[in-house]
């Protein structure tokens, strides 16, 4: 006898054993875990405290790998005959963008750990503010994605759609603020270019770019979420 135990179960066969939305949320939990960890480390790094940063990098890399497994699991187990309340392609793109947050976080962590670049005192404040905005953006993105539970439960009623949209607007606003902050940072770096070592300038610009990328991808996630909802 086979493991399944010889059963004709057409009804059960129409259900996926693991729901794609549950998996998406599980993937999002990994993003949350990763950004919480890296965000803390990043702010301490900006303050010149590099202790334990290598451990954080290692942990971030592990989380990224775990999330990758979830992602491929979803991708590999969505058959072509699947029938979902949202567009399957948009669902996959949302997941992909969410995964990119982790990829960027991992790259950023490795880069920071490779060379401990000292943040000039004058720029420290604005760097930390920027990091906090990016973390907030990701947090708002998590709220929007998390609301998908209510969306599916109510089969996308207007009230829940509006609520998700509110979360999405919040992400847009925060991302925009982070962008403004990043311009401020870049201006600050160029102002100090004479005083700084060129290699430091290069790295500071790179850090500004790469941290900001995380907020960009958080925005992409919610944009695709919005498209997904509208069907």
């Amino acid at each position, binding site marked *: 006898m086979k493991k*399944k*135990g*010889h*059963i*004709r*179960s*057409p*009804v*059960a*066969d*129409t*259900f*996926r*054993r693991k*729901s*794609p*939305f*549950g998996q998406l949320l599980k993937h999002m939990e990994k993003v949350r875990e990763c950004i919480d960890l890296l965000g803390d480390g990043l702010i301490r790094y900006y303050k010149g405290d590099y202790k334990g940063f290598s451990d954080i990098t290692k942990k971030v890399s592990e989380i990224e790998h775990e999330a990758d497994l979830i992602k491929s699991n979803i991708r590999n187990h*969505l*058959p072509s*005959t*699947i*029938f*979902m*309340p949202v567009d399957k392609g948009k669902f996959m793109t949302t997941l992909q963008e969410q995964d990119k947050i982790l990829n960027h976080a991992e790259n950023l962590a490795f880069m920071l750990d490779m060379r401990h670049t000292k943040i000039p005192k004058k720029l420290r404040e604005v760097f930390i503010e920027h990091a906090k905005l990016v973390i907030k953006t990701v947090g708002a993105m998590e709220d929007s994605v998390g609301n998908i539970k*209510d969306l*599916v*439960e*109510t*089969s*996308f*009623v*207007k*009230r829940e759609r509006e609520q998700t949209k509110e979360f999405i607007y919040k992400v847009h606003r925060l991302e925009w603020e982070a962008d403004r902050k990043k311009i401020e940072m870049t201006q600050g770096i160029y102002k100090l270019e004479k005083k700084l070592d060129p290699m430091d300038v290069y790295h500071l610009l790179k850090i500004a770019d790469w941290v900001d990328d995380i907020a960009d991808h958080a925005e992409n996630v919610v944009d695709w979420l919005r498209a997904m909802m509208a*069907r």
Partner: protein
Amino acid sequence: MDPATTTVLIIGGTGAIAFYMAWNIGSNDVANSMATAVGAKAITFKQAVIIAGVLNLVGAVFVGSHVTDTVRKGIISTSGIDNHVLLLGFIASLLAAAIWVTLSTWKEMPISTTHSVVGALIGFGLIAGGTSTVIWGKVGSVAASWVLSPVAGCILAFIVFKIIVKTIFVKDKPVAAAKIVGPIIFGFTAFLIVSSLFLKTSLSKNYGFSDIDGLSIAIVVAIIVTLIGIVLLRKIQAKSSEDYATVEGIFRKLQVGTSCYVAFAHGANDVANAIAPVASIIPLARGEGIGATIGIPYWLLALGGVGIAVGCMTWGRRVMKTVGGRITSLTNTRGFSVDFGAATTVLIASKLGMPISTSHTVVGAVIGVGLARGLEAVDLSVVRKIVVSWLLTLPIAAGTSITIFLILRGVFG
């Protein structure tokens, strides 16, 4: 052997095959029709067995006669065939159908007991009396109902789920809305069950109820059920403004009712049509011929009911475990919609005397809820498998039936 002993032997043997068939239905079909309720954790396994055993029996006894008649007399014209041949033919059909169901269970093909019985009867009709024996018009309408019943289940489940969304989920206070809408839907369910019990059934004939009497009884029962529902749900309070969990909790209670409805409808259709060949064999064995007036003996239906209960308890446990465990994403509002859509379709089909497959109608209903954006993911590949399996079932059941008939005729003819 004297004729009396032969009769006893034939009836005993047929009873054994019928019991085996009922066991098949109990272990597989019942589990499938109750899957949504078990999957949504509305009822436990034990409750499912009890509900299935009792209500399948009730459905088969009181509403199933139309379906039994169709299978018994609607598929093949028995007038030109000798009684002895008929007897062998019905035994062959029953055995062939039972074997095919067991084989498909082993191979995990989503075939239907109904389709097997009809296919087997067609096979026997062809070999015994040629193509003119089979009443093709009726066979055609039966085959059409196999396509139409999942579609009807799909549409009904879609509508029911949309009603739930529009009257409960859209509202600012979903729980308060559910406390009113839930009992009303429930009263409506009670109305359908009771009216099906009293409209043109043996029950209404025996007690002399007219259609209007039946309808008024149904309306009264529906109102009582609605009121009881309102009283029972009175104490439930929402924990927050978007407390969907409590809404699901209310529907979990309501789903106990709809799973009774499903079991009842399943009894009225699937059980009745599987028992039909047996109902033909017994009068034939007694040498009475296949008259129109012969009712199905109650002991036979009881045997069917016991067989179902035994099937449910022995193998059904594992089936339900698999089925229930696999559909964890099913919530109570969805399960309710599926059950209601499917059971109503099956019950209406039973009233029209159409032998259809409950499992396939349930699959149709699941797709209906999916179309209403109610389910996270529905795998449609099973639909293809169902179509393939029912295209296969007819010729294979017919072929097996022919083979067994020829062997039986060789031995006893």
